[in-house]
């Protein structure tokens, strides 16, 4: 359970960690849009170089990035192979009925690079932002919607609580699994139906404890007079700094570079 690196936060003190989470969120979104709107391989390589530089700034070991890329290797391979064989154009080489075309190879490389950049980019966001920062950023960005009667505050609180309890519930699952394994529960082998049945001793205690925790949390919040999100202030107010402006400028430069690269 603990081997999941995608979506994990890595504590650090890099310039990217110190950015306003809203800036981080928006730049990541723009980066993803860019990935899908540009179509030349040179642009994709530039995008990859850009994200690798960002990883170097954050000082996240390359090993970790590779580990988080591992689960998508089959997808990358699958799309590459499909592209390679089924796009018609100038034949490079062929055997039996299958022929590999120049255009096919090009699109295969493009798609793989795009998927890799996509994952690396979104991972960078979660590596450098705590879940609390992200909900804070979302809340602040959606704030205008309160005027339309949309409960942004409540939604943000719900998200914060949900995210806060993911590690707790994972830990709880680990503990319950350990306890049931100690009593000889067989979770790894058997037919599909048996395996589903084997989950009962884990799911029931997990639900019981989730309800217990929810009860306790509700009580604790009421004890501290929580009564909805209206008019609440945050512990860490989000404020744009000079460094945020600089980061945005660097990113804009990168965008210009990409557009120029597309003209070549």
């Amino acid at each position, binding site marked *: 359970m603990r081997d999941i690196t995608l979506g994990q936060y890595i504590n650090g003190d890099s310039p990217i960690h110190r950015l306003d989470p809203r800036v981080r969120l928006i730049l990541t979104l723009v980066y993803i849009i860019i990935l899908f709107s540009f179509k030349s391989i040179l642009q994709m390589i530039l995008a990859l170089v850009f994200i690798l530089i960002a990883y170097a700034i954050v000082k996240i070991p390359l090993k970790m990035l590779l580990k988080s890329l591992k689960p998508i290797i089959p997808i990358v391979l699958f799309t590459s192979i499909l592209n390679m064989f089924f796009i018609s154009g100038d034949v490079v080489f062929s055997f039996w009925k299958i022929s590999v075309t120049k255009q096919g190879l090009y699109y295969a490389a493009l798609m793989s690079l795009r998927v890799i950049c996509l994952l690396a980019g979104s991972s960078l966001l979660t590596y450098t932002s705590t879940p609390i920062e992200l909900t804070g950023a979302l809340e602040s960005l959606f704030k205008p919607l309160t005027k339309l009667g949309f409960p942004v505050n409540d939604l943000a609180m719900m998200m914060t609580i949900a995210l806060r309890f993911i590690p707790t519930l994972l830990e709880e699952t680990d*503990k319950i699994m*350990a306890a*049931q394994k100690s009593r000889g529960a067989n979770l790894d082998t058997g037919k599909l139906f048996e395996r589903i049945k084997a989950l009962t001793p884990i799911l029931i*205690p997990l639900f019981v404890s989730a309800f217990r925790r929810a009860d306790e949390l509700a009580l604790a919040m009421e004890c501290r007079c929580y009564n909805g999100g209206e008019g609440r202030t945050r512990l860490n107010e989000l404020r744009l700094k000079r460094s945020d402006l600089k980061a945005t400028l660097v990113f804009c430069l990168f965008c210009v570079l990409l557009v120029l690269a597309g003209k070549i």
Partner: protein
Amino acid sequence: MSVIRLENVGFTYQKGMPDEKTAVSEVSLTFKEGSFVGVIGHTGSGKSTLIQMLNGLIKPTAGSVFIDDEDIWSDTSKLRDKRFKVGLVLQYPEYQLFEETVKKDIAFGPRNLGLSEEEIEERIIEAAGYLHLSPELLERSPFDLSGGEKRRAAIAGVLAMRPDVLVLDEPTAGLDPKGRKDILEVIDNYHRKENKTIILVSHSMDDVARYADTVLVMNSGKVMYYDTVEEVFKHSSELRETGLNIPTVTDILLTLNERGIGVDTDIYTVEKAADTITAAVKREVHI
């Protein structure tokens, strides 16, 4: 009967990551057959990690764990059999209860062992007997019990598997004094009657001094002392320096000694402490 032997065992969380943390390192020791071992140490000293390696719940990142001279990780298909030899009661075991009735919950372990229905029934009665669970209570839902009853029901679930080695991680945490005493008596009783090995993790030195014959002191993931109760508590002043508790009576005797009243300090039972204090008082009165 089973003997657990650890050779240079170490465990590091998040190995290779920026936030890696070594929980246990270079632990080499043997848990003798039929002994009652008390494991003590600070929170975060690696006790819980260590005991989870004893039945193969976590794989050591260094060294090996042997049960009856067989490396438990040499053949992972046999790992489950090893788990039946070493029964592990984790912290707050009541969170593992899941069945409709206490009886069915206790039957979970024995059923996984593949025993016959009669044998399972026999095991339930035996385990319930040890833990003072009445036949009426066995038919109730485990979620309707009191905290102490839940704890006892959960321990019964492990005991019903008749493990050769019973490992308990702070089985008395969060219970009232009577609940604590009841559970410790149950463990002691099981140890005496069945002569099985007991490994008890505890924060209470008084409990360890009272029930264990061997003490394992863990400090920052390493073995600080592993010896008989007498030998370990001879180092009481060192233990106190590392911030660990020592038996209350030993603590009193050490303090008396510091205040200039000559008493024996290698003592950890109330009876012997009373003797040495009486002797000291007699001496003082004569002067």
